[in-house]
């Protein structure tokens, strides 16, 4: 009996994955729990374990293949060893000969799909890359800009938005915080009062509720209550809105809530292009800006502007 190993969904928003590495080869015996591959998801690189036991009959994708849809077969495992041959080359040749016509067709269509995706990749970047690139560009230009939040540095971002920033800018400006929303939000507001430009990443905007007093009573109102003396140049950003199968606490839209607060500006980009233009404008804005990213759109690819002064005016 042949069992298909499918590209697993390793996060609620993952729709496709990249095959980084095979840890097994064709003909090899695998036991349940063995790590068989490394898959790069939209959030991280994860190890995939075998659930079933048997012999690897066929690896359907090569290392380095990208954009393999979730639930697409990536390998076949057979209950029995197909050949006693000790020569792996022979095994492979034998295996290939025994390959069914369907598998050949499947392979061909998958290769074609991968090629198409690669071409698209060259022309477009994803929403998460557009956001990351804009943060990096503004951090290069202005030393007052820094980013803090849960898992933004060493982990490279819970949604991989801040990937690579720690390496480029160091721990002084890319700061992992404890799970302490009210504390680090208030701290960032104080830093903004004092002249820095913090970018606060909420792992998701659901957790901004822990810090909403600092956002509204401190960040949004102090300019008014100080008679125009103390402004708060800060960006609060992170995933917002409907997410997939995570229930009511992790799937809500705050655009209306925050839009009711005088002193805040609220943005929600819908394409990589306007994510770049709006985020750059938000970072340069002297007021507190709520930047609501849609979790489901992080993987959306589109054209962007490579002008590092490109902004989209609000309103």
């Amino acid at each position, binding site marked *: 009996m042949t069992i298909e190993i499918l590209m697993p969904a390793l996060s609620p928003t993952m729709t496709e994955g990249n095959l980084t590495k095979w840890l097994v080869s064709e003909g090899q015996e695998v036991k349940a729990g063995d790590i068989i591959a490394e898959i790069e998801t939209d959030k991280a690189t994860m190890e995939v374990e075998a659930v079933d036991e048997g012999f690897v009959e066929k690896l359907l994708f090569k290392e380095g293949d990208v954009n393999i849809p979730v639930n697409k077969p990536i390998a076949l495992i057979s209950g029995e060893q197909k050949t006693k041959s000790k020569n792996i080359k022979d095994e492979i040749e034998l295996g290939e000969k025994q390959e069914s016509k369907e598998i050949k067709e499947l392979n061909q269509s998958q290769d074609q799909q991968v090629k198409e995706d690669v071409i698209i990749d060259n022309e477009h970047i994803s929403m998460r890359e557009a956001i990351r690139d804009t943060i990096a560009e503004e951090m290069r230009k202005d030393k007052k800009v820094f980013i803090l939040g849960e898992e933004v540095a060493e982990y490279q971002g819970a949604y991989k938005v801040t990937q690579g920033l720690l390496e480029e800018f160091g721990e002084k400006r890319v700061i992992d915080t404890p799970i302490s929303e009210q504390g680090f939000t208030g*701290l960032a507001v104080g830093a903004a009062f004092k002249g820095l430009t913090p970018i606060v990443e909420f792992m998701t905007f659901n957790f901004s509720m822990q810090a909403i007093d600092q956002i509204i009573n401190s960040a949004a109102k102090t300019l008014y209550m100080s008679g125009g003396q103390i402004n708060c140049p800060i960006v609060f950003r992170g995933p917002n809105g409907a997410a997939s199968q995570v229930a009511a606490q992790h799937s809500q839209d705050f655009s209306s809530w925050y839009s009711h607060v005088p002193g805040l500006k609220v943005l929600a980009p819908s394409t990589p292009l306007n994510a770049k233009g709006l985020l750059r404008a938000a970072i340069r804005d002297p007021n507190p800006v709520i930047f609501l990213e849609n979790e489901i759109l992080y993987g959306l690819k589109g054209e962007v502007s490579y002008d590092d002064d490109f902004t989209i005016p609000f309103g």
Partner: protein
Amino acid sequence: MKKLSKIDHLKIYSNMLKIRRFEERSSQLYGMGHIGGFCHLYIGQEAVVVGVLMTIKKNDSVVTTYRDHGHMIARGLDVKRIMSELTGRANGYSAGKGGSMHMFSKENNFYGGHGIVGAQVPIGTGIAFTHKYNSDKNICRTYIGDGAMNNGQVFEAFNLAALWKLPSLYIIENNKYGMGTSVDRAAAGSDLYKRGEAFGIKGEIVDGMNVYSVIKAANKAGEYVRSGKGPYILEVQTYRYRGHSMSDPAKYRTKAELEKYKNSDPIEVVKNEIIKKKIASNKELEKIGKEIIEEVKSAADFALESNFPENKELYTDVYL
């Protein structure tokens, strides 16, 4: 620490007295309806802020609670413009839009005046973060009422300050009551400064009725924080003679308790020291007292003669 000069002693005395006379005048103006909204007086606590400010450097920052009039005065800000703010005038420190609880002076590194109990603590920690980020050797002093010491964000801020070794000096002004609830009825365990120990933050108790004790402790703590060792907590034991706010008759405490503190009045402590050291005579101090009354009175007159903000100001300073 440098020995206090004669001028220092007189500065301490006049600053403390100015706060008291200012607050008494505020109380009067509140009663006359010239000050609206909430108004929290600092009478009895003068030694705390005046003592701490004797140790501050010019570019150090300060953040405090809504009981902020005394903090503004001790910082050397213009009493005329403070009174203008209390009476909601356009020439007040916050253009009449902050009032008693929300006064700011960015040019003097005075970052409020915060009306939400506890919220100023992460903010002050963020200002300290900025001093470290900019490597400018300045520190931020964040004042915390005893009531705020039961507010969760204070501990989040302590954790961050200790974790990142921020130049943050926390000064708990323990005046024994969070509004009408005594510390004993609000805080489990004894000694509020010990709550920093969980984060490895050192601290101590200071006699806040004696300005000289405050100066000594604030100087030591300030040097510790400035040296890059991280935050420090001073729990300054003090007492407010008046109620929590103007509308509080303070029936939750006994007259005997109030009298006990009045008998160790912080201004009398300074006065006695000055007389004892022959820095000034009783008569000279009386003269200073009269000048302060005049200064505060003219500040009140100035405020009451000043214009209110125009209606259109409701719509300005919402966005920069």
